[in-house]
């Protein structure tokens, strides 16, 4: 294993410490339980947004804390969901009284831990709602499995919701907006190489020199299928058409019912993309894929969208939701409307995403 680290068990803590030193005006950190949060939190009059998940996806989530994005982020060990005490303490720290929205990626562990945290926070009198992102079309739909994973749409949702929170959306409005973003966003990723979890010390999976893994998650978990390596254009074609041609997707997602005071399962259906849709196109590096390769993907994606009648009205290209040093990429398309475009353009100032300020 070749990494710029000290001891594997210290990676997350030392990373947090380094972030606090590098961005003192932007973020503060809390250790044990671990989280980082906006230096100016709690922000008066604003609903607080909290996300979290296993580490190893940087800049998501810890590097996406700041104006127009998250109020706090809870890092688990690498690729391991964080624990409820982290989300609970973070909620206490950043809640301004307007309530807290937990943004959860759909993994069994993340969902369980965040739901426990939500229950605990409510016990302490904090108004908490949750949204789940499950946008990975690589996972075959079913009402009876863990469902689709939360991937690229998470990054987009975090800024859109962050911008909306700055504009004064209520907790209820933010939860509704988050669910709208989720059903309109779809992603798929692929890997050319594996990555190495520091504590494991060796690659999570083995790929032959001429192989790639298509439909990969963000935790080094194997994907939809292993294939012979292809050109960038062919890979883009597979990812883009899997996203664009995907039919309606129905599943149940747990939501907190305030009146009942209990979790309820709500059935939700994604509308498929259709000709004439305006989209945000997001080309993401899995971490190890360098900047020179992403525009090659973007170029082909642009061509495919044009052919399919989708109009790219916004875009994002870079490393935002990664799997350590894994080489590969993911594509996310988010159907846009006027509200989303306006929120997307709003200022954001975090270590990992910044514009307008």
């Amino acid at each position, binding site marked *: 294993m070749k990494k710029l680290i000290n001891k594997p068990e210290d990676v997350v803590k030392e990373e947090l410490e380094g972030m606090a030193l590098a961005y003192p005006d932007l973020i503060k950190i809390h250790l044990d339980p671990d989280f980082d949060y906006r230096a100016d939190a709690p922000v008066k009059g604003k609903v607080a947004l909290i996300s979290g998940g296993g580490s190893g996806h940087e800049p998501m989530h810890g590097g996406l804390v700041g104006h127009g994005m998250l109020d706090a982020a809870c890092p688990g060990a690498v690729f*391991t969901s*964080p624990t409820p005490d982290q989300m609970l303490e973070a909620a206490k720290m950043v809640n301004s009284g307007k309530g807290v929205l937990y943004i959860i990626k759909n993994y069994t562990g993340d969902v369980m831990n965040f739901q426990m945290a939500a229950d605990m926070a409510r016990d302490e009198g904090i108004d908490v709602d949750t949204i789940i992102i499950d946008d990975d079309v690589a996972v075959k739909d079913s009402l009876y499995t863990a469902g689709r994973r939360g991937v690229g749409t998470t990054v987009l949702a975090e800024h859109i919701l962050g911008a909306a929170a700055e504009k004064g959306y209520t907790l209820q409005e933010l939860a509704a907006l988050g669910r709208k973003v989720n059903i309109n966003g779809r992603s798929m990723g692929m890997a050319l190489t594996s990555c190495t979890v520091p504590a*494991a010390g060796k690659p999570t999976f083995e790929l032959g020199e001429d192989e790639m893994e298509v439909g990969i998650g963000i935790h080094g978990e194997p994907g939809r299928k292993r294939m012979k390596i292809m050109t960038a254009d062919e890979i883009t074609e597979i990812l883009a058409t899997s996203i664009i041609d995907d039919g309606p997707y129905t599943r149940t997602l747990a939501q907190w019912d305030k009146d009942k005071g209990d979790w309820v399962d709500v059935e939700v259906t994604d509308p498929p993309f259709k000709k004439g849709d305006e989209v945000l196109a997001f080309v993401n590096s899995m971490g190890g894929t360098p900047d020179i390769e992403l525009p090659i993907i973007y170029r082909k994606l642009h061509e495919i969208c044009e052919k399919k009648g989708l109009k790219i009205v916004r875009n994002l290209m870079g490393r935002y939701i990664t799997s350590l040093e894994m080489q590969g990429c993911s594509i996310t398309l988010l159907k846009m409307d006027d509200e989303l475009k306006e929120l997307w353009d709003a200022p954001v100032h975090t270590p990992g995403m910044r514009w307008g300020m």
Partner: protein
Amino acid sequence: MSENETTITKDDIVEWLKATAAVLEENAHYLSELDAPIGDADHGINMNRGFKKVMSKLPNVEDKDIGTILRTTGMALISSVGGAGGPLYGTLYLEAGKAVRGKTELSANDLVNLIEASLKGIVKLGKANIGDKTMVDAITPAVEALRQSVNNGNSLIEALHSMTDAAQKGMKDTIPMLAKKGRASYLGERSIGHQDPGATSSYLVLKTLSETIESRHASK
């Protein structure tokens, strides 16, 4: 028949937890390896981290009742394991603790109740059915076997053996299963042919209970 009246003491439980911590440390690598092909290669690391935390909390409650000890174990796991394993194993011990609240000694029947409560908690939280390729596939037959053996009037040690054997079989039975819950479910057909890491750690936890009681009983 007098054997069946063997009881499990608070100290047995403390020893079980210590032995579990040692067994999970020993098997950390193995469990993560099992998690690699159908998950994210962290199950052993997670469980090991969790039981280290349990070990650090144990001294504070070693002289409390069994319920308190198990609840403390559950809380420590929830706040340190993370992943799916954290809430699930946390719930396992929390529910176990609730089931024997205040007790400092457990009869064979208490043990049956304890493990049944644990299983119920896990199923309520994770909504896994038998055959979904999860820890539920190891614990369910184990509970069944334990209860039956106790009801048949076998000795506690014998009952624990039956439980362990059933857990082991349940664990092995996960190999041909197609995963329906947790991370492995993303793989669909490709999850077939791999032993579930959570079922494996559950087997180890139960086996360690059996071995601890047996060895402490023998040495008495």
